[in-house]
């Protein structure tokens, strides 16, 4: 009994953390685009598509104490993480931009924010996806 209790508490904490990260990322990106009026580039949209549903999925999982959240959250996280890594590689010029679908409209390599010389929006996105990814890895054993 006590064992399960501790277990479910850890699950709750991990899920709660993942949810907070996804909420901050969701609201933060909305703040950048809707309040500060930064037009999002194509890459940012692909990452948003993966991040926004996570904030809802984790919330539902929190309320229902769902241990299967790993299964349905991980695919979104992996896709988002892929785009976030790719976007950062683009930004640092490791992947040339001409290969990316970003040449029209807003460039994926322009800086809107640059805090302390390395914190850009795509960096924040990468951090968010990475944090959620790591948290989910810890959630998986709890689920089985």
């Amino acid at each position, binding site marked *: 009994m006590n064992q399960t209790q501790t277990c479910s508490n850890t699950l*709750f904490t991990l899920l*709660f953390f993942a949810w*907070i990260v996804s909420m901050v990322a969701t609201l933060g990106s909305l*703040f950048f685009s809707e*309040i*500060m009026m930064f*037009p999002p580039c194509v890459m940012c949209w692909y990452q948003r598509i993966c991040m926004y549903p996570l904030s809802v999925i984790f*919330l539902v999982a*929190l*309320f229902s104490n769902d241990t299967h959240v790993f299964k349905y959250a991980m695919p979104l996280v992996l896709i988002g993480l892929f785009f976030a890594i790719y976007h950062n590689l683009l930004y640092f010029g490791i992947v040339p931009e001409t290969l990316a679908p970003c040449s029209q409209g807003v460039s994926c390599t322009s800086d809107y924010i640059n805090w302390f010389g390395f914190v850009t929006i795509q960096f924040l996105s990468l951090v968010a996806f990475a944090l959620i990814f790591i948290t989910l890895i810890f959630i998986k054993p709890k689920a089985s």
Partner: protein
Amino acid sequence: MKKQTLIIASLFVLVLLFVGGSYLYKNADHSVSSEKTSALVRPHAYVLGNPNAKTTIVEFFDPACGTCKSFYPFVKNILKQNPDTLKLVLRYAPFHTDSYYVVAMIEAARLQGKYLEALEVIYKYQDKWASHGTPNIGLIWGFLPEVGIDIDTLKNDMKKPEIDALIKQDIADTKTLGVNATPEFFVNGKPLVKFGKQELEDLIKSEL
């Protein structure tokens, strides 16, 4: 604390932060900071309207940008309505491919005393030479003689180092001021926070 309460409280705090942040951001003073004001107006920039006017509109534009074209008559009209109190400083933000050369053409036309004529003719035929994705600036040579610009002189003048320096200065200033889309307007150093014709008119009126 009960788990549900914690979740709802967190949700509430996050939404509150968002709404509060939006409110603070919108009401904050976004004026260009004093150490950056020199980047707004440079002595080389073309000025339209009364040079001694107390209200200054600074516009960063790209000759290949469609929105800049549609704002041009609008701003000119506001200028016409306030001939004594307003001036427009035209700065370049040549973000599109080859816009650098189009800007050089406009600056070279200025040496022939045909600045606005060149700008207006370039805007007029924008659909033809700047069709999406593939600007064909070679077409502009055919349009400029329409307003009496001598192309041979223009081509020579375009190579002048001072024109190159001027454009590079404008590009550097877009970076300093954080201009990342065109057109970007500053009225007495205050940027247009929400983009739109009505918003621009309101901002100008509040500064008159």
